[in-house]
């Protein structure tokens, strides 16, 4: 029996008990109240369109989901909102130009076509448009030729010390009969004699006509920053970027058991590049157009309450085109490089690429006893179409050597050599046709979520991942076959092409790999508050189909002309143009000899990953969840690039030949495949290995007051045999390369916060009811903070005198000297005396990355503050301010890592020069309805 009371407070606080008539029971049977409630339910449900027999209008009005919702937004950035980056301040720079507007809308709701179709809650659309207009100022202070230099007058030109720089006439070169070969070359002991131009002026008749044509496109110097005519060209050019795209989606539900979803994504973008010259000779970046299109169709069929089938088809294309600046004949401007002056022309002026993907997936989920099963089948077809000529009009390099006094520094100039048309080297990309790469993969998976017993769930999974190797639509693929004999020297290694000589369409095998996984979740001792999780998985990833035309060397070439002696003979003269080269396709086995040859790994080894994990989650008082975990992941056959892998490297034992290694012919004779300069493996050589161990602690808290917070701390160690910006020392002994991964931060802490400030109506604080509520209500903050310890320090010797045997030389460790110092700071972060430059023709004995020295830590704090103004119950206006690095914190740069020899030590070794970072602000306005 319910005890019923009606209680009122009189002003004096006297309690009054209600009369029996005012109680709810038992005067009327309880069932009658329930029946009234049921009756009201039926009325309400009908009026609100919740029932099958509801009026049509009511059905249409049913739920908020059948109304149109949307938003209009604008995000705004301007350089006056941002801090000047620390690195710019340190260089004495000023704030750059930035104007950015990002705007758009979203609209979603039922599809209604007046008088034709009323989608109600069955057909629903959502469309989002977003546009971006951005102007970013790029400023560069550089050096170009002076006006007198362009006419051949070098009489006023000086070197970096202010001394006159003589320009010599290559045509007057002669062997010095008095040269003493036992002494070093010097002004007093010249191997070759050469006369300077009279008055340091080159006669106009000697200047190359093509060079003069190009010079006419050079703008005049506009800066006197100096010193000595240097830094005489200040570029301040805006880079204009635009983008516009939309995402549209329509969902249609049929008789509750079928749902059909159709999606379309469309985006066009233009990445402008700041021009350095206002004409075809521009050597700035290449402007690029981007196009992305994607279409998706999804059909979900609920076969029964316990069986669902989902079929998805997804087709996409991602394209970019480099926008050429062509002359009247439709040619791109050639590239002329004459350091130290700003070059002319650009690489990849005509390139275009497209990646198209078709993916069809079917998933079927069902339940069988205690097993929840999921079967997945997926077919993927991938196309990469590339047209990728790097130098379609050629690239010429001009150095000081040909206008210098041979063997004497500070004589001659690259621009002077250019004026005379004397190229040190030149190359030209001959791309006959685009490449059309293709690949398919088939993926099958079965997953079982098995509730073994109450509180213990086991997940089992087995995937079969099959991938065909890369093929080319017209079989225009080639590689070096390391087991084929080269006809020129009888050594292994010869160019082969697809679908020729008994070979198939590709050079790699078909791969089929089984990928098992198992994991479990266990509520420890039946407690809902504690969950233990464990997992193991093994997976493989196929070699990507990269953009570009790597692996088509027999069909698309890059003829190169190199001077036999860069001080004496030009590779070619500019006025003569390129000599007639070999014709393409050139499928002869020796066609790639003496080049950097494209090499496709034929082994079929795929990157293999394996991971174990273990964690315990515990829910504490106050809705706080704490998780502790450990995980290990490891990989092998990771794909390495040319810096990490070199199948044509000279073994380190050859260092015993010392100075002989400087002889190019002898040097090449030591390579496993001496008829190739090098191999280009294009990030596809499967030799990498890594292992990562990590323990972590995570705290999560969510409160009814609108606060959610997550703190995550991780301690990790990651080792590998390949990482770093310089490459490896010993390609043939990977165990010696096993060291800390570049970029591994052992301590990492992050904190994320989202908080609806508890001010105003329906909140706990500042529940003011007058005009002030407009100020205090609707505030929200979000923050992300990350603090990490430093990266491992990778030390490098200042000089690498190994005769080209070692690409990335390690330093030596000085025994007995502690590399750590007591108070590391910018003035000295580590003790450089603990390391030494290895003697000539020896390797360093230190690890690639130091096992205990780390660079300075870093931290970053981002914050978002929003203020919402409710206009009606459905409409609101929201202002937001997003600040990246909002505290404008500077993170120190890495310490100088170059270790010099005792005779010429690097005085900055161990010092930190400069810092980086700066606050960036974006303001936003959004109207939602």
């Amino acid at each position, binding site marked *: 029996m319910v005890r019923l009371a009606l209680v009122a407070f009189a002003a004096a606080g006297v309690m009054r008990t209600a009369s029996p008539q005012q109680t709810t029971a038992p005067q009327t049977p309880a069932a009658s109240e*329930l029946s*009234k*409630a049921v009756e*009201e339910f039926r009325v309400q449900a009908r009026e609100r369109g919740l029932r099958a027999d509801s009026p049509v209008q009511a059905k249409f009005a049913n739920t908020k*989901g059948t109304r149109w919702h949307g938003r209009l937004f604008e995000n705004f950035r301007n350089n006056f909102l941002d801090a000047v980056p620390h690195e710019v301040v340190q260089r004495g720079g000023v704030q750059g130009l930035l104007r950015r507007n990002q705007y758009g809308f979203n609209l979603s709701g039922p599809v209604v076509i007046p008088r034709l179709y009323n989608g109600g809650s069955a057909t629903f659309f959502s469309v989002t448009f977003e546009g971006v207009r951005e102007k970013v100022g790029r400023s560069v202070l550089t050096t170009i030729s002076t006006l007198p230099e362009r006419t051949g007058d070098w009489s006023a030109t000086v070197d970096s010390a202010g001394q006159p720089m003589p320009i010599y006439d290559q045509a007057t070169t002669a062997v010095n009969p008095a040269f003493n070969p036992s002494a070093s070359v010097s002004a007093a002991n010249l191997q070759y004699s050469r006369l300077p131009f009279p008055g340091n002026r080159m006669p106009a008749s000697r200047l190359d006509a093509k060079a003069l044509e190009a010079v006419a496109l050079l703008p005049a110097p506009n800066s006197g920053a100096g010193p000595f005519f240097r830094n005489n060209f200040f570029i301040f050019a805006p880079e204009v970027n635009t983008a516009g795209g939309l995402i549209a989606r329509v969902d249609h539900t049929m008789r509750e058991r079928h749902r059909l979803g159709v999606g379309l994504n469309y985006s066009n973008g233009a990445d402008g590049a700041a021009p350095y010259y206002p004409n075809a000779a521009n050597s700035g970046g290449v402007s690029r157009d981007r196009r992305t299109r994607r279409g998706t169709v999804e059909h979900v069929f*609920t076969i029964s309450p316990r069986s669902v089938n989902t079929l998805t088809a997804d087709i996409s294309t991602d394209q970019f085109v480099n926008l050429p600046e062509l002359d009247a004949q439709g040619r791109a401007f050639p590239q002329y490089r004459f350091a130290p002056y700003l070059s002319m022309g650009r690489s990849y002026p005509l390139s275009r690429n497209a990646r198209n993907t078709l993916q069809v997936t079917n998933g079927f989920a069902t339940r069988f006893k205690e097993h*929840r099963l999921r079967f997945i089948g997926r077919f993927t077809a991938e196309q990469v179409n590339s047209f990728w000529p790097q130098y379609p009009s050629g690239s010429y390099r001009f150095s000081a050597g040909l206008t210098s006094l041979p063997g004497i520094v500070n004589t001659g100039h690259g621009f002077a050599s250019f004026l005379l048309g004397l190229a040190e080297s030149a190359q030209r990309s001959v791309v006959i046709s685009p490449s059309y790469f293709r690949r398919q993969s088939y993926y099958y998976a079965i997953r079982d979520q098995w*509730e073994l017993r109450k509180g213990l769930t086991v997940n089992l999974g087995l995937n079969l991942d099959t991938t065909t190797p890369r093929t080319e639509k017209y079989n225009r693929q080639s590689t070096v076959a390391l087991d084929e004999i080269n006809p020129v020297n009888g050594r292994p290694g010869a160019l082969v092409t697809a679908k020729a000589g008994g070979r198939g369409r590709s050079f790699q095998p078909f791969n089929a790999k089984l990928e098992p996984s198992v994991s479990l979740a266990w509520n420890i001792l039946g407690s809902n508050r504690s969950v233990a999780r464990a997992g193991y998985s093994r997976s493989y990833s196929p070699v990507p189909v990269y953009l570009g035309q790597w692996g088509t060397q027999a069909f698309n070439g890059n003829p190169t002309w190199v001077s036999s002696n860069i001080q004496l003979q030009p590779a070619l003269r500019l006025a003569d143009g390129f000599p007639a080269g070999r014709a393409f396709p050139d499928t002869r086995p020796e066609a790639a000899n003496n080049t950097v040859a494209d090499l496709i790994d034929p082994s079929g080894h795929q990157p293999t990953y394996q991971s174990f994990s273990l964690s315990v989650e515990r829910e504490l008082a106050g809705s706080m969840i704490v998780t502790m975990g450990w995980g290990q992941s490891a990989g092998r056959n990771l794909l390495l690039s040319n810096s990490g892998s070199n199948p044509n490297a000279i073994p380190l034992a050859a260092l015993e030949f010392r100075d002989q290694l400087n002889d190019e012919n002898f040097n090449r004779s030591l390579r496993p495949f001496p008829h190739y300069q090098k191999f280009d493996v294009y990030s596809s050589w499967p030799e990498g290995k890594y292992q990562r161990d990590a323990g972590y602690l995570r705290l999560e808290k*969510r409160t009814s007051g609108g606060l959610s917070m997550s703190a995550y701390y991780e301690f990790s160690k990651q080792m590998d045999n390949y990482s770093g910006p310089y490459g490896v020392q010993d390609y043939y002994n990977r165990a010696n390369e096993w060291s800390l991964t570049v970029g591994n931060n052992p301590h990492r802490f992050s904190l994320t916060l989202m908080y609806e400030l508890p001010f105003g109506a*329906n909140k706990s604080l500042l529940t003011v009811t007058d005009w002030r509520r407009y100020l205090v209500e609707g505030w929200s903050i979000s923050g992300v903070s990350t603090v990490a310890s430093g990266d491992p320090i990778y030390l490098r010797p200042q000089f690498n005198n190994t005769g080209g045997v070692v690409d990335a030389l390690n330093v030596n460790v000085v025994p007995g000297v502690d590399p750590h110092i007591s108070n590391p700071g910018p003035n000295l972060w580590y003790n450089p005396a603990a390391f030494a430059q290895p003697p000539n023709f020896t390797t360093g004995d230190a690890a690639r990355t130091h096992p205990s020295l780390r660079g300075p830590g870093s931290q970053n704090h981002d914050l978002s503050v929003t203020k919402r103004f409710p206009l009606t119950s459905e409409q609101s206006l929201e202002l937001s301010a997003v600040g990246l690095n909002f505290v404008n914190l500077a993170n120190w740069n890495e310490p100088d890592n170059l270790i010099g020899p005792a005779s010429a030590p690097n005085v900055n070794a161990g010092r930190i020069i400069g810092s980086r970072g700066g606050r960036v602000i974006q303001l936003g306005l959004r109207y939602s309805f």
Partner: protein
Amino acid sequence: MPMKRRLFLGTTAAVTAMAAPPPPATPADRALLRVPYWSEAADAAATPVVQAMLNGANVTVARLLGPADDLVLLLVLDLAGDLSRVDPARDAINARLKQLPANTMVGLLRAQDGLRVLEDPTANRESVAGRIQELSVSGRAGLLDTMETALGVGDAMLTKARVRVAVLYVSDSVVTNYREDFANPVVNSSDSRDMSRRFPEALIKERMQQIVTRVGRTQTPLFIVQLNYENDRLNEAYQTGLIEAATSTGGNAEFCRTLAEIPDAVGRAFDHVLAHSSAELEFKPAGKVWQYDVQLRAKGAALRHRTRFLPKGKEGR
């Protein structure tokens, strides 16, 4: 005619024939607030003598309904995701339905693709359980779009009858499964300096605050069992918003981190619903009011109750 339909009509006819007198009408100038509360008295089933203050002033407690009084539970299923979580939820709900006291009626609705009545409130547990087992797991998540409507139906029932009413959602919704776009996916992949997605939760937070405000005007307590516990930023904001919405009505939200937790979470939600009491406060509205702050007290019992209401219509916003 199906058996369950005959049973329902029969019950309705019999109840209607009893012709119960209507409850005393509330004077036109008086307003009512129904405050859900939980008593932590030794005898939790008993209804203690409750005193109430509204915006700092004493008000009349016109009626109290305790755990032993009639209850209509509107059970709303919002199941559009993974079968592996839906099945244990169905089993857990049906297990709890069998244990409900006789004076509890259960109405069944589905929220995917708009709110739909599957079963009017009934005391026939088998009928409801059958509909639950037959329910298709399909469509798009509907929790956010239907919450206010379901609570509105509950409010109407509270107004018409002396019963307790609660709305219980069982949902596997995640932010990305809504028809409306809350995830703010990248539109222009070529835009490399986009800062607007650094804090991707902005849209869902805004929507959740709209909902918290709107459900603050309703009087039916809302309970949510969320079958997924997600900790990415978007779903963290979404799930924190669900907690806030449910709590602001006096109810609460439960989250399941594992399959094994689903039965217990469902069980706890039913327990909360069954244990709730309702205090009907009668008062004379005094001009423009922006918020009602409620304090309930009872001798000999600690009360946990809803503390705030937002006024409807022209009284407030």
